[in-house]
């Protein structure tokens, strides 16, 4: 017997998480699918903003779509809006939704366990690797969308969602912050991806869990659900950026979204962890268990929805749809006054200030027989303002299409001189009339709107 052999037997210590993490990254980096996804994230937003910004018909359905030809920052915001609908959940499917299931597909669990010797550390390493890759993909989207817009159109001012003018510095800061607000809900969907991946193994439903959840939540958002529930769902956190685009900012919904998303991320990650460390890795036929997933996965998350909805309702006093006449009138009047100042400026007329205009709005939904509350395309508003130096007041009519999430599109209905035409003729050429059609939103929470000055 050699000297070394005579020493007492040593227990293998588990591999440090950092090494496991590197191992996971090596495996992920070698996946063709992931490389293609990264390439798409790097190219698609730039190509899209580059191409669409130069076209005459712009995607006006998306917030800021109609501004894509005016400022490079609009493109990035449009991409952000797209991302929040389904693309980011889909990305989390490809990364987090697959990171455990891939070992099931390849039959490599036992191999990995023998090498790492700690299922806890495998979980940590995998979760961190998934997080890293998700951040990289998100970073690629941000960079690509901004670069694409700035290269093709350049950095020009844009109105905020309350119409206030935003210069390049404010836009740069706001767009980056807006993307940052997409991170917490992305983490929430990633965690759901981990949960699906752990709980359902090779089954495709496990892989698609984040997208399934996103579709379900989108469905819920389309229904006339109370504002408290709406705000308490992680999908709504993708809309939190809107509060950054007003002056002053409206951060309540944003912070609630961050809190909700991080709670989802923490709970789903914990549930995935618990399912994972309890798993019997000797069972080769393991294909996850739908029932266990329902009990140990979905039920706690459903409980979280109830809890957060209740908390939001109590904390904010929000009831009903969150869309009502007073909020719309305030939001519309504010936007109009800001945009009127912008229009005056573009037409090189004598400068006015928002305060001089003393704008007010009166809104009505669907005539006399309909309650003036709730979303719908049948809102009609009359905006009134005072022209400085003139005794007369101006009036303009808008048709408002108010979505259930609080976003509205105001469509100018005359007089033609104010909001009827697109474009307007400025001394330096034609420009889009900022008062013709514009986007805005109302905060669904029942707090007094702070966006008015």
């Amino acid at each position: 017997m050699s000297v070394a052999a005579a020493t007492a037997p040593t227990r293998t210590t588990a591999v440090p998480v950092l090494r496991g993490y590197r191992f996971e990254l090596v495996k992920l980096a070698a996946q063709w699918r992931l490389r293609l996804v990264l390439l798409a994230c790097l190219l698609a937003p730039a190509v899209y903003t580059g191409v669409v910004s130069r076209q005459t018909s712009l995607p006006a359905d998306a917030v800021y779509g109609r501004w894509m030809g005016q400022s490079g920052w609009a493109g990035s915001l449009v991409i952000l809006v797209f991302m929040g609908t389904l693309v980011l959940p889909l990305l989390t499917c490809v990364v987090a939704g697959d990171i455990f299931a891939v070992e099931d597909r390849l039959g490599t669990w036992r191999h990995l366990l023998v090498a790492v010797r700690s299922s806890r550390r495998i979980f940590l390493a995998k979760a961190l690797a998934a997080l890293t890759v998700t951040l990289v993909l998100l970073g690629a989207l941000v960079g690509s969308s901004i670069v694409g817009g700035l290269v093709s159109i350049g950095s020009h001012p844009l109105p905020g969602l309350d119409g206030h003018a935003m210069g390049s510095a404010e836009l740069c800061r706001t767009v980056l912050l807006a993307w940052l607000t997409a991170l917490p809900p992305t983490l929430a969907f990633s965690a759901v991806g981990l949960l699906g991946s752990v709980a359902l193994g090779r089954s495709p439903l496990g892989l698609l869990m984040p997208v399934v959840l996103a579709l379900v939540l989108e469905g819920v958002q389309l229904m006339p659900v109370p504002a408290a529930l709406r705000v308490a769902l992680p999908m709504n956190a993708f809309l939190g950026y809107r509060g950054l685009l007003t002056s002053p900012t409206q951060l309540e919904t944003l912070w609630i979204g961050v809190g909700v998303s991080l709670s989802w991320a923490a709970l789903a990650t914990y549930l995935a962890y618990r399912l994972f460390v309890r798993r019997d890795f000797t069972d080769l036929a393991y294909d996850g268990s739908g029932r266990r997933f329902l009990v140990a996965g979905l039920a706690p998350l459903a409980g979280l929805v109830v809890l957060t909805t209740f908390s939001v309702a109590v904390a904010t006093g929000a009831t009903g749809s969150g869309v009502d006449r007073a909020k719309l009138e305030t939001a519309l009047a504010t936007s109009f006054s800001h945009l009127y100042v912008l229009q005056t400026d573009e037409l090189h007329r004598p400068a006015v200030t928002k305060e001089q205009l003393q704008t007010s709005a009166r809104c009505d939904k669907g005539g006399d027989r309909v309650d003036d509350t709730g979303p719908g395309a049948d809102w009609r508003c009359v905006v009134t303002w005072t022209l400085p130096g003139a005794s007369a007041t101006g009036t303009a009519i808008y048709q408002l299409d108010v979505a259930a999430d609080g976003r509205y599109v105001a469509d100018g209905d005359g007089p033609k001189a104010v909001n009827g035409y697109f474009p307007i003729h400025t001394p330096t050429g034609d420009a889009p009339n900022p008062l013709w059609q514009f986007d805005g939103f109302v905060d669904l929470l029942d707090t007094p709107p702070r966006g008015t000055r």
Partner: protein
Amino acid sequence: MPSTAVRARGLTKRFGDVVALDGVDLDVSSGQIHGLVGPNGAGKTTLLGLLLGLAVADHGQLEVLGAPAGESLALAGGVAGFVDGPGLYPSLTARQNLSALASLRGRVDGSRDAVDELLGRVGLRDVADDPVRGFSLGMRQRLGLAAALLGEPRLLVLDEPANGLDPAGKRQVHRVLTELADSGVTIILSSHRMDDLTALCDEVSLLSVGRVVFSGPVQKLAAESGELDHRLVTSDPAGARSVAERTPGLRVLTGRRSGSPADDGSLFVRGPQASVEDLVVRLVGAGLVPRELGPVVSQLEAAFLALTGAADEEEDAR
């Protein structure tokens, strides 16, 4: 190094109602190549999984390299191997698989030279930079073996390492394993092919439905074969049959035997070696020429079938 690499007493492992291991005792000395053999579902993989720390026995004691196996995944250092396939990542190349694993394990030498040396040892140097996706079963087995060797293990646990290997590959793997054993590494491997094990193993353990029905040197296993079936071809099948029927201790088997062409005039007899020799004398005495006479299966295989009860089943089926 403890002189016993593995010591198991009364290991029991159940999966629900299935008793995968039922009071298994196992002793493997250091530097030995020990074969586990047994029919499908005998519990070989389960036992190897316990040795790798992938699962914990329900009852019984297990000592691996002198350290008692306690919790799952907490085992003595120096154990490596695989159960149920070598577990490789198809998108990585052979070299990447090994070097990624080496840096995962940290302390092992994952330098290019060390990896190349290993690849050469298992005969994969030429395909070192090909993705494992395109590897054949045998190439994967070899790479899995190389991966297991990365940590310079003192105990190597291999589940069916010869599965899918061509004769040359098998020889190469056998050579690698023999060299390792010579350098003091203990190797425990499973197979359901007796011929693989006889060429390689110092000792074998025969498992049948979760129990060890034989454990010891291969030669001793042969003695357990009991009565062997023999196939006899003569110039006169009918005459030979009547001679055989009159030979004491010998039974003439009826019915068709698998593996023999129909109606080639062969006769199957079962009995101890002495009776078979007696039959030859009697045949010659009766003027019949035995053209062919030999055991239907090898002695070891017969022992395998006898001890695992497979022979009886075959008999019953007829």
